[in-house]
């Protein structure tokens, strides 16, 4: 029965002790500890968030870099291919135009040659005609001292000169 | 003498009660392990309430003896 009867002295001592303990610990322990823990939690949260952000940024930069590099590679390949095509085209065109030029030169040359040949032929024919007339003159001078002979000769020549 | 019998009865009742609380909590934990801590808290509170009633009875038994 004694156990169930609270002793007033102990009640008073426990009460005062407990109140003082709560006040002391509140001021010197719980507030600083809980405050520090909260600050630390915030710091950690913030640090984690900023680390995450930094990571994200680094990843973005990395991605960007990669992308740029890839684009550059594609561009380079494209440029090279284009250049190659251009080169081939230029060469092709040069070849073509050279061919054309050459053909043209050959053609003109051929035409000129033909013309020269024609000219030469006609000149030669004139010359031959002149020469023939000269020779004929001279021969006539010699042969046709006699009328008969002259007549024979003319006939002979006339026979010889065929009008081909 | 009667007090002792009464105490025994109280203990049987409280034991059954807390046992049932524990049983329910265990089953709930097995079914939903993801809310384990909440079940634990609720279990302790329920067990404490059952225990509180038992303690009342014990104190009363003590007082009337």
């Amino acid at each position, binding site marked *: 029965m*004694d*156990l*169930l*009867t*609270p*002793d*007033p*002295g*102990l*009640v*008073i*001592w*426990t*009460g005062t*002790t*407990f109140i003082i*303990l*709560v006040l*002391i*610990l*509140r001021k*010197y*322990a*719980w*507030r*600083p*500890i*809980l*405050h*520090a*823990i909260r*600050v*630390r939690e915030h*710091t*950690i949260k913030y640090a984690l968030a900023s680390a995450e952000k930094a990571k994200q940024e680094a990843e973005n930069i990395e991605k960007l870099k990669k992308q740029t590099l890839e684009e550059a590679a594609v561009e380079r390949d494209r440029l090279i291919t284009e250049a190659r095509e251009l080169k081939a085209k230029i060469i092709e065109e040069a070849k073509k135009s050279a061919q054309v030029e050459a053909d043209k030169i050959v053609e003109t040359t051929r035409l000129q040659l033909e013309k020269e040949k024609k000219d030469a032929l006609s000149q030669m024919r004139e010359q031959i005609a002149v020469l023939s007339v000269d020779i004929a003159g001279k021969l006539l001078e010699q042969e046709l001292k006699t009328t008969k002979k002259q007549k024979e000769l003319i006939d002979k020549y006339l026979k010889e000169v065929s009008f081909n | 003498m009667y007090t002792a019998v009464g105490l025994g009865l109280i203990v049987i009742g409280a034991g059954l009660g807390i046992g049932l609380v524990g049983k329910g909590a265990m089953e709930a934990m097995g079914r939903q392990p993801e809310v384990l*801590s909440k079940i634990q*808290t609720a279990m*302790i*509170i329920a067990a*404490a*309430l059952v*225990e*509180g*009633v038992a*303690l*009342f009875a*014990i*104190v009363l038994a003590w007082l009337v003896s």
Partner: protein
Amino acid sequence: MQRFYTIILLLAFILTSFAAYAENEGEKKNKEGDFDPLEMIMHHISDSHNWHIVSFKNKEGKDVDIAIPLPVILIHDGSVHIFMSSDFHHGEAVVQKGDQYFKLYHDKVYLTDASGKINLNSEGVPENAKPFDLSITRNVASMWMSVLIMLALFIPAARKYRGKPSMPTGMQSLMEPIILFVRDDIVIEQIGEKKADRFMPYIMTIFFFIWINNLIGMVPIFPGGSNVSGNIAFTGILAVFTFLLTNVFGTKSYWKDIFATPGVPIPVRAILIPIEFVSIFTKPFALMVRLFANITAGHIVLLSLTSLIFVLKTIYISPVSIGMSLFMDMLELLVGLLQAYIFALLSALFIGMAVNDEEEH
């Protein structure tokens, strides 16, 4: 830190050495000289005016008690008397202060006449008047020790938190998980983030105070062993604090729930209101009795197991007794923590129910 402990130890030794006194005492044993476990147990779990250290039989066969006398503070008829409990000579001597005589009978101080006569009624209960006893008893001294331990644990730990946030070290890393557990799983969970800060110091202190006192009660040798947290006065006043906090900080909706439960017809209210009203008092009462009964029962069981050796008067039972004591000790370590947790949890729950407007029944 170490210096602090050294000082405490030194103080204890100095106190013991100049205050320790040995005395023949025959009253403790009953007439046949047999060992009385009930009396021994009751003596251990109730409060005392001196801090018992050890008893033994010396070479001459006399019983020797070594104990620290504690100050006795008595208030009677408007006068305050302070003297050491050694003046009582274990209840054999009558102490005269002014024209008042005091005598110790079963660790309680009674007013007597000059001869020191205690009038017992038919049930063996003294009929003498009692002065108001404000003594520093064993429980008070033990409680103050627990206060010193708490200050020694938490203030240096708190000091380490100064400056930049850093990794916890030493005592700090031991305490921090427990503090966080109390903060997150008890206070914030039950009271809610918004109002938790106001009650945090109270719940924290109550948790550690009860736990440390439970642990001190578990120590079987000198500075421990007192049954502070198993004393109804101790548990009662803590329950009263919870009761006061609950009702002082209770919001309108809390009171409305009690006296005008919403959504309930008036005839039913007539039944509900008395129940609700009584439950205001039964909740802290259950808190008080729970802690008291758990801790006291633990002490009684442990002491009974030890008494087994002396009751059966054979040494061969001691392995059983020690083995079971060990088991009970382990259990009591758990119970000590669990009861502190439950007390803090239920206090937080009651406060949380009272201070939060939104009811979450």
